[in-house]
């Protein structure tokens, strides 16, 4: 399986394509698993349902992307093998996705920053030369739009709410902002994907993300924190301590009972 050849366009290797797909897939999977922890613990029934539904969408996107990565890799690993039988250093999710739920303010800020990134990224990937990825992106972007409406809606309501809710959102922004640089700064693989016509042009996502997030922060009467360069490299497999704990829970059954089926 290969991306269609076109004169004058660089060809990505199988390893590069798989690595890039894992970044997208793992970010959805880990964010979905995090939100899944909140099932039955949402602050109100509607929010509980909303977070659960968003979690399902993200895990659904992850399944499509992992299955595609497994097919391209060609070593017989399916979506389950990739989700359940890799250890933390083999995960390629953005560090932001693995951050704990904290209070509702932290959950909302994390989702908001991530939703904006996924929305802009999938929007751009609808034109990817990796055709199967473009198909998934067409589907995912529709879901990301209402994920963003939900998280940005709460960002504004809480940011422009009471002194308490404003203070909690401001604190959550302070905690989580450092992880946004990883989303927006292309590394060598991101640059390579752009050259090969698979990933977004360098700088494009930062520009659109900044516009979207700045507007929401202004409406929420929240100060945009100063730019922080922070050496998180989840997308290269260097994770915070939180991912390991998440994986022990997510992977327990397939690890304890290999090959178990319903």
């Amino acid at each position: 399986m290969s991306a269609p050849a076109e004169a004058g366009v660089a060809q990505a290797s199988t390893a590069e394509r798989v690595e890039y797909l894992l970044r997208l897939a793992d970010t959805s999977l880990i964010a979905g698993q995090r939100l899944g922890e909140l099932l039955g613990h949402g602050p109100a029934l509607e929010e509980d349902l909303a977070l659960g539904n968003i979690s399902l969408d993200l895990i659904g996107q992850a399944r499509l992307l992992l299955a595609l990565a497994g097919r391209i890799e060609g070593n017989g690993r399916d979506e389950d093998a990739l989700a359940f039988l890799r250890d933390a250093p083999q995960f390629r999710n953005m560090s932001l996705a693995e951050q704990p739920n904290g209070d509702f303010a932290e959950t909302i800020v994390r989702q908001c920053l991530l939703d904006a990134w996924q929305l802009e990224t999938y929007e751009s990937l609808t034109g990817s030369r990796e055709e199967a990825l473009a198909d998934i992106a067409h589907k995912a972007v529709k879901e990301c739009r209402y994920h963003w409406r939900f998280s940005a809606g709460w960002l504004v309501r809480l940011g422009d709410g009471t002194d308490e809710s404003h203070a909690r959102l401001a604190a959550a922004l302070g905690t989580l902002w450092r992880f946004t640089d990883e989303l927006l700064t292309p590394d060598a693989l991101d640059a390579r994907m752009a050259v090969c016509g698979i990933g977004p042009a360098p700088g494009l996502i930062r520009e659109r993300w900044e516009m979207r997030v700045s507007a929401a922060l202004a409406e929420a009467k929240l100060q945009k924190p100063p730019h922080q360069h922070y050496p998180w490299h989840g997308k290269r497999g260097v994770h915070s301590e939180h991912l390991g704990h998440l994986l022990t829970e997510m992977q327990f059954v397939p690890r304890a009972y290999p090959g178990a089926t319903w």
Partner: protein
Amino acid sequence: MVESAGLEGAKGRERRIWRTLESVADPEIPVVNIVELGIVRRVRTGTDGRLSVGITPTYSGCPATEVITRSIRDTLDQNGFADVMLETVLWPPWSSEWLSESGRRKLEAFGIAVERPAGAQVACPRCASHQVERISEFGSTPCKAHYRCRECLEPFDTFKCL
């Protein structure tokens, strides 16, 4: 045009498959079938004469998708279509416009309103009032939102416009 070998032409078999698939109900909303929901994207005969059914998920994470795939397989097998292949079709992505008119009417009769694209208002499935408000964009399944009627005060599910 001469149709391919067999007592029945390819088009005839395709039609019979469409009719067979109309007997597969949605597991979450059993009043509508999967053809009305727009989950069956195509039935076609390949150049090698093999038939395939293309199905598309409504939402990426819809847990009903697997049950639906299994029901389609079982129904095809039971009706003499064991050799028909199932394929997942992602593009163009499913949208509520794939819902058929009869599907819409059945949903409304069942008590589930349907969001219409661009501006058209949702009507309360109980009293038909347009004085309704959306409580949450998320409901009991990924494809539904939660509304309330300000006229008769009843809460109700609404099939989302995606």
